[in-house]
């Protein structure tokens, strides 16, 4: 348990590593060896995280067994009387809040979520006007889950990068900021209060900025970096305002207390929670790439590929999802997730999932396909949270991190082999040259597509199920979104595989398999993409093998039941029909795409079989087939229009609006500066002077020097004044 109470060590180690690398990297350690520092630090942190995970599991198990007797007869009740007691024993700066009555149950399927302790430590950081700002760590299942994800992916990316970024002009800085990012992200996930959360949130944003702009000599990279940072700042308005609302309502920053308070007060604070939720949703939209603030994420691919894998696929972009999960009672109350059948969060999530998937078809850059896929999958998670499927969202976050990181690293490996290009039109046939990359990529693709029994299948199924069942009423629109996206996801990923690995090599030079330093992490991730789903297998599945004990591990250990049951969250049981439907959709997506390419692919069959093409080998005609593919496959459906419309909207409306907003801000700035500042205010000041001057020039005409003219003026003025007096008095 020691590690859970001293969890601050976990972010501290990479932070120290950052300083060491930055300050001593070039001089003492040597530029080509800094990656060892980073890898060591993250390795230690990974071990600590694993220890933390084990301790956490032990803790939950202990609590469960010690409460076993109570649990036996409390088990029957499903969702009744589940009010959070909120009476954690407070002693000093450490309290262990053990719930007495926090039993969840999944519609009688008979597992007991154990009492759910939260370990929260806090030390006074500073105080202002009677309000104490604390710094501390909040460790619960969700934190531990993220610790595992972040440190695992980070470690693998560190290792992978040592080859991928080798010899880079800024190798030292790269590793320094990779460490800083890891530290910030870990700091963020164990933030004890909202202020810390903001700090972590901003710090990961800066690391993202620095790493996207890693090759800052080229203008597009810095543009992308600035765009990412600015878009995130837009969301930060929401974050700052949302935090201010929460603080104003509850008078505390403490996340644990806020969650408990919302659970207790419920509808009393509904309006404030609605406002806070909307504000925070803006932050989620920017950080987690949700519509309409997602446009920075594809551009962010300008950074080095491992960075994209770590930051822009697996960890930082899920910060928004994590925050929703962390403050779930707030959103649950604010958006009335329990009672509605559609709400802002679910809609934004579902819609983002749909447009992201649609856009992925229109890309030729493999990283951009993956980026849009990430957008889409993040939308899935947000949608899951929006329909009340908390566990499903976290589970999907967990599985997605592995297979998406694997896909990105695979893309990096491909580009490493194929002369640093990410254009799929210059790839092709790579499966022959790089078998490891190919295999891992396919495994991850299957996982992403949600094919049984890969990880994605299980998590996606839970999300669809959540939408189907909802809380009090089903989220029908979300279910439709989810199903369509399932189909699309499978289809565009198959397309990627086709262009990248099948067919003939269309690039220059001789592609080669990447070294082991890169393939081993790929394999690890691929294995995780296969087995990660096992961590939350539903009981009925495991019953077949007599392994019920291992069911719902994520749910059991990650879900903060004392918050969620306090707000009355129910868990739908698994349904074979839904699972089968999801699987069929995914398979259909793959099958249609595959069939299409299968019919038209190959050096031999292409020209003969295709009516529209004159020749089948050249790049241009491939593009032509793509248009044909779109019209052929999605005929009668609205997918291509959606993709194009979305792309069009993306490029012409949202980007335009963003650009125009920027230009407009600049223009209005210029306008205000020129006309108001320089023109009005400044001129008023200047005008006093020049007006006097001009007036003087005007009066100069009157200054004839002739006494009689002055006399005329004198008497005339006297007369006028006299007349005025006479009239007035």
């Amino acid at each position: 348990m020691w590690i859970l109470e001293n969890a601050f060590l976990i972010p501290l180690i990479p932070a120290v590593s950052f300083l060491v690398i930055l300050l001593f990297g070039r001089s003492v350690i040597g530029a080509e060896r800094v990656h060892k520092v980073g890898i060591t630090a993250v390795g230690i942190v990974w071990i600590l995280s694993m220890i933390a995970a084990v301790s956490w599991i032990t803790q939950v198990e202990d609590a469960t067994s010690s409460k076993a007797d109570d649990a036996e007869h409390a088990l029957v009740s499903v969702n009744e009387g589940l009010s959070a007691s909120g009476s954690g024993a407070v002693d000093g700066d450490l309290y262990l809040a053990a719930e007495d009555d926090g039993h969840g149950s999944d519609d009688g399927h008979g597992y007991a979520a154990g009492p759910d302790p939260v370990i929260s430590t806090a030390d006074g950081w500073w105080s202002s006007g009677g309000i104490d700002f604390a710094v501390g760590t909040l460790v619960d299942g969700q934190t531990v889950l993220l610790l595992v994800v972040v440190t695992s992916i980070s470690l693998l990316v560190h290792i992978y990068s040592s080859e991928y970024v080798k010899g880079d002009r800024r190798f030292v800085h790269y590793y320094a900021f990779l460490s800083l990012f890891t530290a910030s992200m870990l700091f963020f996930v164990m933030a004890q209060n909202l202020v810390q959360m903001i700090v972590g949130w901003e710090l990961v944003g800066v690391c993202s900025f620095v790493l996207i702009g890693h090759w800052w000599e080229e203008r597009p990279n810095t543009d992308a970096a600035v765009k990412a940072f600015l878009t995130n700042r837009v969301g930060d308005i929401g974050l700052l305002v949302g935090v201010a609302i929460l603080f104003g309502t509850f008078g505390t920053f403490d996340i644990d207390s806020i969650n408990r308070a919302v659970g207790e007060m419920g509808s009393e604070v509904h309006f404030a929670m609605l406002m806070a939720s909307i504000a925070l949703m803006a932050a989620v939209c920017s950080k987690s790439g949700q519509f309409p603030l997602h446009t920075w994420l594809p551009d962010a691919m300008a950074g080095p590929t491992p960075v994209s894998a770590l930051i822009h696929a697996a960890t930082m972009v899920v910060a928004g999802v994590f925050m929703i999960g962390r403050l779930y009672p707030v959103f649950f109350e604010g958006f009335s997730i329990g009672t509605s059948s559609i709400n802002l969060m679910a809609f934004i999530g579902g819609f983002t999932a749909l447009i992201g998937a649609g856009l992925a078809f229109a890309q030729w850059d493999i990283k951009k396909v993956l980026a849009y896929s990430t957008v889409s999958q993040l939308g899935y998670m947000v949608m899951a949270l929006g329909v009340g499927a908390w566990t499903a969202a976290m589970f999907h976050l967990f599985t997605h991190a592995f297979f998406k990181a694997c896909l990105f690293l695979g893309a990096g490996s491909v580009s490493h082999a194929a002369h640093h290009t990410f254009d799929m039109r210059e790839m092709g046939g790579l499966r022959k040259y790089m078998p490891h990359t190919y295999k891992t990529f396919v495994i991850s693709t299957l996982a992403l597509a949600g094919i049984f029994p890969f990880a994605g299948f299980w998590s996606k199924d839970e999300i669809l199920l959540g939408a189907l069942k909802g809380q009090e009423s089903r989220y029908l629109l979300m279910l439709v979104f989810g199903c369509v996206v399932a189909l699309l996801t499978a289809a565009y990923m198959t397309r990627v595989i086709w262009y990248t690995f099948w067919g003939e090599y269309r690039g220059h030079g001789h592609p080669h398999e990447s070294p082991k330093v890169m393939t081993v992490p790929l394999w690890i991730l691929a294995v995780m993409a296969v087995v990660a789903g096992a961590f939350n297998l539903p009981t009925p599945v495991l019953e077949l093998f007599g392994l019920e004990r291992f069911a719902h591990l994520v749910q059991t250990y990650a879900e903060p039941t004392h918050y969620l049951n306090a707000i009355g969250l129910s868990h739908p049981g698994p349904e074979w029909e839904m699972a089968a439907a999801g699987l069929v959709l995914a398979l259909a997506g793959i099958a249609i795409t595959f069939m299409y390419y299968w019919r038209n692919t190959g050096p031999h069959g292409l020209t003969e079989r295709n009516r529209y093409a004159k020749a089948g080998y050249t790049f241009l005609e491939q593009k032509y087939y793509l248009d044909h593919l779109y019209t052929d496959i999605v005929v009668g459906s609205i997918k291509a229009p959606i993709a194009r419309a979305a792309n069009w909207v993306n490029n012409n409306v949202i980007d335009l609006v963003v650009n125009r907003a920027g230009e407009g801000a600049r223009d209005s700035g210029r306008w205000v500066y020129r006309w108001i500042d320089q023109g009005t205010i400044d001129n008023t000041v200047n005008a006093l002077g020049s007006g006097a001057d001009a007036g003087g020039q005007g009066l100069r005409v009157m200054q004839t020097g002739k006494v009689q003219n002055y006399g005329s003026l004198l008497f005339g003025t006297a007369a006028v004044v006299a007349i005025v007096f006479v009239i007035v008095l």
Partner: protein
Amino acid sequence: MLLNQFLLLGALLFAVGVYGVLARRNGVMVLMSIELMLNAVNLNLVAFGLQHDVVSGQVFALFIIAVAAAEVGVGLAIVLLLYRNRRSIAVDEFDLMKG
């Protein structure tokens, strides 16, 4: 007799004097017009003195006559000087102060 008949006479003379000061080109004529204005004031003073039964009106009229004499003396000296220097006493030809 009315008070006003004297006052109005004074006012008219004053206005005529003003016109003379402003309109005449000849320096001597300007000085004469000034005398006219001073006399118009004198008439007022004497009339008010009578009206309010005080001797001050007459005393001040006397003073003004004295000052007017001084003024004419100096004024004519200046006009003379101007004439000597410029061979003209047309006041509208003197515009050294033109801005």
